[in-house]
């Protein structure tokens, strides 16, 4: 069994080649996939998140670490039975109906993925019905909505109403974000939380799901 420190370091640095080599080394020396995931990769990403929130890392560095983690996981994903890899939670995310902007939404997706959530990205211009349909289908923990335009914000309210009507509002937490969105607006439309930026989306997700 090998010590996973070098792996963690490589993930933190975003050094894909070294990280893959370290992952392979750990697998060869008998570490379990779950051990590598928990104590090598996720530990590293927690540290990346900590450094980022302190302002010690820039976004591209954090995303590179997330990418490094994904690359490492490819080496042992096949060892898991379906459903074996424990994620922090399932998130359905999309830019709301009428809005075609996706940079912010994509960034949130990547950061949440990096933090250990499994993400289903519905893309842009996502109708309330589509959100509801997906909630029925995969039973996520969180529905996350993004809007860049003031004029498309009402679609967030409509989506929450559609979730209520479908009787699934109580089964998911709703998180919203985007340039014109405010904390007050989130409360007005009955969302569970508002993330002012991608980094805080990760923190807020942990809070609303009660993950330490």
């Amino acid at each position, binding site marked *: 069994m090998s010590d996973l420190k070098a792996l963690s370091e490589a993930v933190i640095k975003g050094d894909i080649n070294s990280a893959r080599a370290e992952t392979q080394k750990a697998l060869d020396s008998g570490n379990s996939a779950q051990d590598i995931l928990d104590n090598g990769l996720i530990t590293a990403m927690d540290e990346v998140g900590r450094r980022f929130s302190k*302002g010690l890392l*820039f*976004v*591209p560095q954090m995303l590179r670490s997330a990418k490094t983690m994904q690359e490492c996981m490819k080496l042992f994903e096949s060892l898991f039975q379906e459903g074996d890899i424990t994620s922090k939670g399932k998130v359905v995310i999309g830019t709301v109906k009428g809005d*075609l*902007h996706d*940079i*912010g939404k994509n*960034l949130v997706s990547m950061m949440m993925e990096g933090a250990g959530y499994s993400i289903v990205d519905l893309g842009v211009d996502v109708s309330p019905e589509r959100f509801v349909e997906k909630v029925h289908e995969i039973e996520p923990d969180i529905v996350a909505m993004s809007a860049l*335009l*003031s*004029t498309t*914000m*009402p679609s967030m309210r409509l989506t929450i109403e559609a979730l209520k009507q479908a009787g699934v509002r109580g089964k998911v937490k709703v998180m919203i974000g985007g*340039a*014109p969105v*405010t904390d*007050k607006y989130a409360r007005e439309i009955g969302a569970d939380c508002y993330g002012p*930026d*991608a980094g805080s989306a990760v923190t807020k997700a942990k809070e609303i799901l009660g993950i330490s």
Partner: protein
Amino acid sequence: MKPKEIPTLQPRLKVLNRKQALAIHEAALEILEKVGFKMEHAGALEMLTNAGCKISEDDRLKLPARLVEAALSSAPKQIVLYDQRGKEAMPLVDGNYFYGTGSDATFTLDLETGQRRRVVLQDVTNFARLVDGLEHIAFVMSMGNPENVMVEDIYIHVFAEMVKNTNKPIVFIADSGHDICRIYQIACQVVGGEKELRNKPFLLNYSEAISPLHFPENIMEKLIFCARKGIPICLPSGSNAGGGAPVTLAGALALGIAENMVGLVVHQLAGKGSPFLFGPNVSTLDMKSTIVSYGCPEWSLTQAALADMRDEIYGLPIWAYGGASDAKVMDAQAGAEALFSIISSMLARCNVIHDIGFLEYGNTSSLEMVVMANELIAMSQFFTEGIKVNRETLALEAIERVAGGEPGSIFLMDDHTFEHFMKAQFLPVLLDRNRYDSWKEAGATDLYQRCNTEANRILSEHQVEPKVDEILTGINRILQGG
């Protein structure tokens, strides 16, 4: 003998040489020919394919360079914006520059409490009236999306509010082909009809495509509407370095220009010879907070580059920004960043310079910031006028009178000083140059407090020449959906 006239050099900023400008232009054309773009408006798609664009298997349109050349040659090289009474106000030609406010902020700094709060319609009123009373701010934008207006009609209401509270030119936002029609009706009311508006436009539409290379239906509706009605429009995409565009400025410029050219081509196909302002917004995405920066040096640099490209290649008036900040309050950072973009956009000779008065990367508007910017523009203007050199300004006679004259002679007493000082010096109003004691006696204020007082003074004293009842009734009818 008549004294020889010595031309005055007006200091000017140049950041690209011709080779650099051409290389960026060629990269933009290559993007359009090879990568192509996504067009979601069926009418625009048809116009483009009829004109010679090819659709690839993944539904991307590829645009040949000759269409860009044709659009560049049919678009007017000068655009004149009038005020709402039909007087020439903004001749957009060569290096003429005009400053104005911005749009779509969610928050504003309350004039009484200094606190950040949501924008309401009364704020749009106040910003319009303030700008109407400020000498160096040439045009207005709404400065906010009010929370007490139905969001579906938000742009119609803020437009009407601006019309009621200023006679300066208006740069307006619309959501789609639907609300732009009603805004257009209001504008026609103001000047007396469609023909009058086409001949003497007092308005300019600001729309944004989505970077990278994505043209949604509602954006194209507005573009085509403006092209057909002869309303000047600019269509900068948000090709921010690291966000909508590559992180390196040359690539971000090339992408933004490519997107702008798509807009121009569609625009000229829909309304040949209609006025179009060139220029993407190439700021940066901050690599820690992911905000699009309004105080960064990059945006000032890229728009100076665009001004060079205008001079070298395009010849169209350009769209730019200035006088804004990422600071959350009007502090030293706000002052530094506002002046940086104001003076550099002026030195670069950008034409229509918006976003004056924004804090918090465009998320919060501030009346005090607008008042400060007004003075910073005056200061920059003084600087960019250069130094006039002639017999009068060399003042050899005054020197002889004072230095070679009676004991006790001083320049301050000399007629030459009296005759020239008003123009020879920049005379600040709000920037404080008092001696310490008098500054303290007058309340030891900082610039923010003085700008606050000045904003209050203008709002209570300045009279906006009112519109006649007939126009106001017409506007109200349109607002009520009539």
